[in-house]
C-alpha cells in the first residue's frame, strides 16, 4: 500500500474504505438479484456470472471516486450488461458470429433506467422456476438454487448435503449445460402449468430453509440469511397468483417456515448452546412471525385442499400458541401427525409422532414407540432417533441404556451445539451411573 502523506490522503483512504464496506454489504444482499436480472438480459449463466463480477469490480474502482450512485442495483445491472456486450465485441475479432450476438443483446435488452423493483422480483421468480425445472435432476435443482439464488459456495452446499464439493460442482455444471443446450426457458410458468411446477419449488425452498435453520454441520446451528431467503421466496410465490390451487400449500409452507423461524432466538443461549423447545424462554419467540404464521395456517386449513406442509404448520402453530410444554395440546398434535402419516409414510414423521405420544401419555409409552422405529432399523444413522430414545430412557431412570443411546446419537451428530449438548448429557449419565 502507498504511504499516506497528509491528512487529505488519510480522509480519502477512510472514505474509500467506507465505500468498499458498502459494496461488500451490497454484494452480500444484492448480488443474487443483480445476477437474476443479468441472466434475463444476457440469457446465459456464464455470461451473467462474468458480468456480475465485472460490475462489482467496476464499482470498487469508480464509486470511491464518483460516489455511490442513487440506485446501486440499477447501476450494477447496467454496468454488467455493458461489460458483457463490450466483452463480446472484443472477442468478436477471434470468434465469428459473436458480433451479431452482441448487436442482438444491445437491441433486445432495454435500458436499465426502466427497471422497476417488480421486474427485479419477477427476475428472481424466473430464476427459481428455471433452477427448479422438473427436467433437471432433483439433486441438481437443490444445488443450483442454493448456488444461484442464495449464493452459497459449492463447499457450503457439499457440507449441507454430505457430498464432496466436486460432486456438487459437477451437478451444477451439468444442470447449467442442460438449461442452455435443451433451452429450458427463463420464465414464470403460466397459471395452467403452475400447480405442476410449484411442488418442485416448494420442496427446494423447504430444504433451503432447513439448511439455514439447522445447518447440518459446522459451528453454528442457524444461518439466518438462508432461511430468510426461503421465507422471502415463498412470500413471492404466494403473491404470484392468488387463484391457483397450489396456493394452499404455498401458504402452508410459508406458515411452517415462519413458525419455526419464530423460535430462532430461543433455540440457543448466550453461550451458543442448544436449548430444547421444552426449555426455551417463550418470551423470546417472535410474536410477529407467529401471528403471520397462525393466520396463514387458518387460511390453508379452511381451504380444504391442504397437504403435508399445511398440516406440519398446524402442528407448529399449536406449539407457538402454547405457554409451556406441559400446557401444549398433545392430543391434537398426535392427531395431526396421524393425518400426516396417512398422506406421507415417512419414518421421520413416525419419530415425531412417537415423541408427541410420549408427551401425551408419558415417557414409557414414548420409549416403546421410539424403540419400535429403532428395532425396525429405520433411521439407524439419524442422530435424533437415538437422542429421542436416550431422552425417554433418561426420564424413566434407565441411565445405562440412556448413556448408550446418547453415545450412539453423538456418533451421528454433526453440528457443534448438538455435539456439545449430547456430550453434556453423556457426562450427566456417567455421573448418575458412578454414584
Amino acid at each position, binding site marked *: 500500500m502507498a504511504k499516506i502523506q497528509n491528512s487529505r490522503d488519510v480522509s480519502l483512504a477512510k472514505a474509500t474504505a467506507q465505500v468498499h464496506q458498502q459494496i461488500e454489504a451490497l454484494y452480500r444482499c444484492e448480488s443474487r438479484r443483480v445476477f437474476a436480472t443479468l441472466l434475463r438480459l444476457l440469457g446465459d449463466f456464464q455470461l451473467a456470472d462474468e458480468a456480475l463480477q465485472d460490475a462489482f469490480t467496476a464499482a470498487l474502482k469508480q464509486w470511491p471516486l464518483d460516489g455511490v450512485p442513487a440506485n446501486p442495483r440499477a447501476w450494477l445491472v447496467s454496468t454488467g450488461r455493458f461489460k458483457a456486450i463490450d466483452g463480446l465485441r472484443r472477442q468478436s475479432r477471434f470468434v465469428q458470429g459473436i458480433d451479431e450476438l452482441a448487436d442482438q443483446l444491445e437491441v433486445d435488452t432495454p435500458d436499465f433506467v426502466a427497471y422497476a423493483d417488480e421486474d427485479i422480483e419477477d427476475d428472481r421468480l424466473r430464476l427459481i422456476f428455471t433452477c427448479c425445472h422438473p*427436467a433437471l435432476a432433483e439433486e441438481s435443482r437443490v444445488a443450483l438454487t442454493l448456488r444461484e439464488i442464495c449464493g452459497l459456495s459449492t463447499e457450503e452446499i457439499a457440507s449441507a448435503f454430505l457430498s464432496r464439493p466436486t460432486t456438487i460442482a459437477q451437478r451444477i455444471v451439468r444442470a447449467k449445460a442442460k438449461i442452455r*443446450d*435443451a*433451452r*429450458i*426457458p427463463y*420464465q414464470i*410458468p403460466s397459471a395452467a*402449468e403452475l400447480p405442476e411446477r410449484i411442488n418442485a419449488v416448494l420442496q427446494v425452498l423447504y430444504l433451503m430453509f432447513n439448511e439455514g435453520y439447522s445447518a447440518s454441520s459446522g459451528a453454528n446451528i442457524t444461518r439466518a440469511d438462508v432461511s430468510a431467503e426461503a421465507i422471502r421466496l415463498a412470500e413471492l410465490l404466494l403473491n404470484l397468483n392468488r387463484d391457483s390451487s397450489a396456493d394452499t400449500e404455498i401458504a402452508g409452507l410459508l406458515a411452517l417456515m415462519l413458525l419455526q423461524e419464530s423460535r430462532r432466538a430461543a433455540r440457543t443461549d448466550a453461550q451458543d448452546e442448544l436449548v430444547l423447545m421444552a426449555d426455551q424462554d417463550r418470551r423470546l419467540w417472535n410474536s410477529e412471525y407467529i401471528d403471520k404464521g397462525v393466520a396463514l395456517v387458518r387460511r390453508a386449513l379452511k381451504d380444504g385442499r391442504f397437504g403435508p406442509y399445511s398440516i406440519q404448520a398446524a402442528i407448529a402453530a399449536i406449539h407457538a400458541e402454547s405457554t409451556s410444554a406441559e400446557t401444549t395440546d398433545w392430543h391434537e398434535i398426535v392427531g395431526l401427525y396421524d393425518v400426516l402419516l396417512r398422506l406421507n409414510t415417512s419414518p421421520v414423521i413416525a419419530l415425531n409422532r412417537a415423541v408427541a405420544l410420549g408427551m401425551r401419555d408419558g415417557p414409557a409409552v414414548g420409549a416403546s414407540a421410539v424403540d419400535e422405529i429403532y428395532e425396525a432399523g429405520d433411521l439407524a444413522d439419524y442422530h435424533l432417533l437415538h437422542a429421542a430414545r436416550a431422552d425417554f430412557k433418561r426420564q424413566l431412570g434407565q441411565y445405562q441404556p440412556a448413556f448408550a443411546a446418547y453415545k450412539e446419537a453423538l456418533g451421528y451428530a454433526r453440528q457443534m451445539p448438538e455435539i456439545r449438548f449430547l456430550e453434556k448429557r453423556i457426562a450427566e449419565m456417567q455421573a448418575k451411573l458412578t454414584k
Partner: protein
Amino acid sequence: MKYLCLVYGEEAKIAAMDDAECMSCVEGLLESGHFIAGEALQPVETATTLRIRNDKTTFTDGPFAETKEQLAGFYLLEARDLNEALDKAAKIPPARVGSIEVRPIRQLQPA
C-alpha cells in the same frame, strides 16, 4: 429450435394403438406449425445394425440394443423452448403406454 421426440415402448402395446389417433396427432402438430417430420417404424425384427471397425463393415440382425422398450417412431418438432417441446410431446399418443425421449437437435459446427 428443433427437438427430436423418440417414441419408445413395448412393441405389442404400441401396435395395439389405433393409427388414426397418431395421424390426428400429426395433423394437429402440422396445423400449429410444430411438425417438421415424423414416422412410425416397422418392428425391431426388421432392423439391421451396421458397424465399421478396422475398415471392415459388419451387419447384425436386430436392433442396436435388446431392451424391453424399443424405438417405435419419431417426431421432429419445431418449438420455442423445452417447455413447448414437452407440452407437444405430451400429446403423442404412445406417451400413455410407453415413453417419449425429448432431445434438442445439435447444430453441426465444422471446423
